[in-house]
């Protein structure tokens, strides 16, 4: 390729840019006039007494991104409403307040709550993870159940999953404590083998100190493993053009 082709392309790009400028300049005044009229009406309707919208960039050129000023003594909710009303006018870009941050965060959560905890509890309501008596070896039937538990926990990766082992009152408490801890560790290891990341899993044992509500501490049904999904703080969505109070 000769040097001519890139030069022609560059010249074309410059001509296109100039054409953009030449097209925008004559219609800008009318367009911005219309936005100014509409925004003044919208501000008045939203109760934003004293608020003015300036449709110009820092250099003074006409812009469709208004800078709202005034109304410092207004209630935050009124300011939010004013900003939203102005933002809703077709043609208006991002709204900024002269006395505040560029954009406010949306107050609507955009994440869906996960139901891992409920799913796992549902699985363990009728069945439980069982061990050989006095040992931390899993019974074969529990392996299948653990597969299902791992599947139910998978959507909550990123959360902390606490695995707590419990025993009944039989035996000595130090022994029970050690056994419950060992059982929780075995379950943790089994979940790691099923693809749940090691980092999010916490195993602990409480012995017989927390029997099932309504059951005698000596009841064998107290031998169990409990899961709690501790949700970590969800990531805040990046605010994009979401007008707020300031």
């Amino acid at each position, binding site marked *: 390729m000769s040097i001519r082709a890139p030069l022609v*392309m560059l010249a*074309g*790009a410059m001509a*296109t*840019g*100039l*054409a*953009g*400028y030449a*097209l*925008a*300049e004559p219609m*800008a005044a009318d*367009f*911005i006039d219309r936005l100014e009229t509409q925004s003044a009406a919208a501000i008045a309707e939203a109760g934003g007494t004293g608020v003015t919208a300036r449709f110009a*960039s820092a*250099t003074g*050129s*006409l*812009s*469709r*991104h208004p800078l709202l000023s005034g109304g410092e003594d207004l209630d935050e909710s009124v300011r939010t409403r004013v900003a939203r009303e102005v933002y809703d006018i077709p043609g208006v*870009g991002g709204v900024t307040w002269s006395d505040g941050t560029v954009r406010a965060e949306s107050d609507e959560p955009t994440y869906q709550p996960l139901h891992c905890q409920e799913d796992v509890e549902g699985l363990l309501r009728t069945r439980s993870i069982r061990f050989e008596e006095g040992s931390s070896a899993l019974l074969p039937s529990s392996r299948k159940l653990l597969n299902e538990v791992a599947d139910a926990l998978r959507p909550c990766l990123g959360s902390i999953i606490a695995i707590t082992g419990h025993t009944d009152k039989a035996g000595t408490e130090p022994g029970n404590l050690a056994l419950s801890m060992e059982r929780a560790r075995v379950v943790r290891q089994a979940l790691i083998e099923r693809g749940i990341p090691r980092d999010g899993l916490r195993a602990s044992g409480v012995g017989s100190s927390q029997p099932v509500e309504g059951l005698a501490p000596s009841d064998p049904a107290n031998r169990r493993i409990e899961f709690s999904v501790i949700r970590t703080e969800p990531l805040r969505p990046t605010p994009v053009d979401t007008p707020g109070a300031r």
Partner: protein
Amino acid sequence: MPLWFELAALMIAAYGAGIGIGWALWGRHDQQED
């Protein structure tokens, strides 16, 4: 951002996209024939 700048940037982007698509469709083919 000035209004003219937004329009000019949009048009230059469209111009660049047009050049890119044109090159992908025909330019590459011409080079192979050379």
